């Protein structure tokens, strides 16, 4: 599903993002990426949905070589990859429903389809009764669930979540992780970047550890170790 081959990313002028990473994530996997701050985890995630492009090496998503993806093709890729960030990035002036619908509106989905899809994804994140609320009327965990719901509207094959629980307390963290597991059970490949030791240890899934821009360990049913 996700192929990295000898990927190097240097930011201008000469800052190393990642150095020489090769990895393979199979369809339906749930992979956690852990590591200390500034080691290149987010860079790795951003390369997957072409927010950044590799300096050298090769990246393929679902068999599609996106190493030199054109600006024109990026939207097509983004509609196949759901993205969740630590900072919630909900639009404060839009309701929950509108925030989710926004992702469909801007990619040209007809209104009729929007009215079908939005309630479905809100149901998945268990917020179907809060569609009329504004973000500030929700808890942090609920807000993050809206972001997850928004990332699901295109029924992505891959979900990339970069520290989705970074701002949340233990209970809400648990909610989000459960949600990601549920989504993964539906067949979506999930890539989770996290700092959270408990989360990783409880998951009992594949763990990739990154240090100084390189993969230092890659273990099925791994544990958090730094």
């Amino acid at each position, binding site marked *: 599903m996700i192929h990295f081959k000898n990927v190097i990313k240097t930011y201008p002028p000469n800052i190393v993002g990642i150095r020489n990473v090769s990895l393979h994530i199979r369809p339906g996997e749930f992979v956690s990426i852990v590591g200390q701050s500034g080691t290149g985890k987010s860079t790795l995630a951003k390369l997957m*949905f072409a927010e950044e492009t590799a300096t050298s090496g090769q990246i393929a998503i679902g068999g599609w070589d996106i190493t030199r993806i054109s*600006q024109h093709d*990026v*939207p097509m890729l983004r509609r196949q990859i759901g993205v969740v960030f630590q900072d919630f*990035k909900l*639009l404060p002036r839009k309701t929950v429903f509108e925030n989710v619908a926004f992702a469909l509106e*801007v990619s040209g989905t007809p209104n009729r389809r929007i009215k079908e899809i939005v309630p479905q994804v809100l149901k998945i994140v268990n917020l179907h009764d809060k569609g009329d609320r504004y973000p500030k009327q929700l808890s942090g965990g609920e807000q993050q669930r809206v972001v997850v719901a928004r990332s699901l509207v*295109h029924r992505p094959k891959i979900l990339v979540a970069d520290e989705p629980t970074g701002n949340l307390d233990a209970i809400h963290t648990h909610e989000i992780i459960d949600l990601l597991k549920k989504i993964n059970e539906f067949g979506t490949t999930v890539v989770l970047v996290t700092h959270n030791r408990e989360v990783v240890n409880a998951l009992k899934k594949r763990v990739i550890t990154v240090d100084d821009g390189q993969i230092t360990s890659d273990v099925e049913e791994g544990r958090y170790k730094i």
Partner: protein
Amino acid sequence: MLTSSIRSIRFAFQSFGRNFWLSLITVSMLALTLVTVNLLLVLQIVATKAVSFAEERIEVSVYFHSGTTEDRIKGASGYLQGLPQVRDVQVITAEEALARFKERHAADATILAALDEVGGSPFGPTLVIKGKSADDIPLILESLDNPQFRDDIREKDFSSYEDIVNRIRATTERVRLFGIGLAAVFLLIAILIVFNTVRIALFVHREEIAIMKLVGATNAFVRSPFLIECFLYSLLAVGIVAGIVFPVVAAIDPGLSAFFGGESVGLLVYFQKNWLPIFGIQLAALTVINMVSTTLAMRKYLKV
């Protein structure tokens, strides 16, 4: 496609409303630029009218010796009428000249008495020649040297409107240069303001734009609301200017006509007849300029 267009237009209106004051300033500046352009247009029309008004009044009077036969006068008149520079030749016979003179001096009994004493008309026939433009006068004067009737001419005389025409032309030219300079300065300011407005709009919408791009909106879709917004600015500016220009033109039109001795300048009629090309071209030009400005701003601040 249609759905996307409607959404782009909606986003554009939202953006316009959210930056209302900024939008207002932008539109005002664009309108100010257009007002200058329209003033130039009005100036052009009035100046053209003024020149032709003055030129119509340039005439050469040719006084013949008294006793010159009607045939010879007709010959001269016919010849002059045939010249391409001549617009009109009017023949004033000796009797008419006398009648005019009497009329002009009706209050002066001594002059009238003296005339009666002479008996008959002491005046010769006169030709009044109107040229097509001020530049034609020297040629007409030259043509009067024709040996066929040169010796019949007692005196030639021309009213000197030429000076006035030249002065109108010079003044118009100066005002026009100043106007063009002013319009250029306004336009430059307008372009900078549009650039800045778009920059701020992009900043205000940075989160929306980031989300749009993250969830797979095309670049065209991200851009189009801003392009539509800048078209909206152009449309509003032209609308406002048209709303100012028509009443103003309607108000000054009668005054101008009175100034030109009741002859209509046709300012209002001109604007009424040509409103579509006049404001259409202004809208098109403004839109193109704004699009360029907006595109530059987007290129700089929106990595799409």
